[in-house]
């Protein structure tokens, strides 16, 4: 009987240890209990990469904003939309307009672009996207309203960013929306709440200067 008790104690200790380990792993040290906070932590740590995607306002525009061998030095502030979204999304469009104004006002133009990417390929035709961008006064040199070339690319992009769009049962979608700072290589440099758009802009500016410096240095090295 005591043998069984000793065995049991050992097995229970192992089980409890495995449990504590699994919980620590899952919550990154009891910090992140939800997927959304895990995702943001991942972005902060530089471990999140957006899959390369061809975007465009219409089907004949094929543009690759970020890729492994890019050298545009651009930083994108990306959010995900569907244009038939009532209420909330319209408010978010307004925040993009504020960011646009801020970027236009800058004396020294920063290589920062705003991107609203539609994930509702069936609903968001090029006309719908154009209407949306007109409604919000998007200046195409700063803020582009685009959609991925096909559903597969859209799904892959959402998956790599950990975004899940759910049908809400009334024809719309619910999704974990936020501002994503993505650099020219597709590395996500930060995820911000909409309300925090100033911080997102600041982060993008910092990132852009850093990238410019890195490009400068490598240019100097190649000249020497």
């Amino acid at each position, binding site marked *: 009987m005591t043998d069984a008790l000793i065995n049991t104690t050992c*097995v229970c200790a192992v089980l409890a240890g495995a449990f504590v380990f699994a919980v620590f792993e899952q919550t990154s040290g009891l910090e992140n*209990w*939800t997927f959304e906070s895990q995702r943001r932590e991942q972005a902060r740590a530089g471990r999140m990469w957006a899959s390369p995607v061809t975007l465009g306002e219409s089907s004949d525009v094929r543009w690759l904003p970020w890729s492994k061998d890019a050298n545009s030095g651009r930083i994108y502030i990306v959010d995900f939309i569907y244009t038939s979204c009532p209420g909330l999304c319209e408010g978010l469009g307004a925040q993009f307009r504020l960011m646009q104004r801020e970027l236009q006002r800058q004396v020294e133009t920063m290589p920062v672009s705003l991107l609203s990417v539609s994930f509702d390929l069936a609903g968001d035709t090029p006309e719908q996207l154009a209407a949306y961008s007109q409604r919000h006064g998007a200046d195409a040199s700063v803020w582009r309203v685009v959609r991925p070339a096909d559903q597969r690319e859209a799904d892959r992009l959402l*998956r790599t960013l950990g975004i899940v769009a759910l049908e809400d049962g009334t024809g719309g979608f619910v999704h974990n929306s936020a501002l994503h700072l993505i650099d020219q290589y597709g590395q996500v440099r930060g995820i911000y709440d909409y309300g925090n758009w100033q911080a997102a802009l600041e982060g993008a500016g910092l990132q852009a200067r850093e990238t410019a410096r890195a490009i400068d240095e490598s240019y100097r090295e190649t000249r020497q």
Partner: protein
Amino acid sequence: MKRAGAYAACFTILPSVLFLDGVRHFIETRMLLHMLLEFPLLFLSGAAAAALMVSYAGGTAWVIEKIDYRGLTAITLVLCVSAYWMIPASLDNSLLQPGVALAKYASWWFAGWMLALSWRRMSEVLRMFMLGNLCWMFGSVGSLFQVSESRLCVNYLFGDQQMTGRALVGVAVSLAALLIYRAHEYSRRTGATA
């Protein structure tokens, strides 16, 4: 007895419906069904498999007895498994990563299997201890789901989360009722023998 065997066999193979993409999708896209249908289903399947094993190959259970003194291992396993799958991030990841999904199916099934094998060896006090633990766990998670002002899982709608919260509290209340009943019975019995 034969009929009991048939029921046990049915319960054992019941979770294989989750192999059907349509069924799994229907269940797992609803938080309520995911937590309060799929989890119990897997658990019961494991338990039914254990019952079948005992009745057809009862001799093999002694191996388990060696590492499961009076059901302590089974209780530890059940409490750990149920606590782990109450974490919102675990739920989300089980839908987004196949490996985590596999761990979910296996752990719930195994917890049921283990508990059924040790149920008879367990003292009534230990059973009540387990029920009590599950009771406060479901109750607190359920109320957390209800008071949270935002979505805790990216895969579930806010309304679904609230409904699941209420249902979990409902389960906790039923467990509390069961616990009180068992405690009452237990004290009556021990009082009679004393």
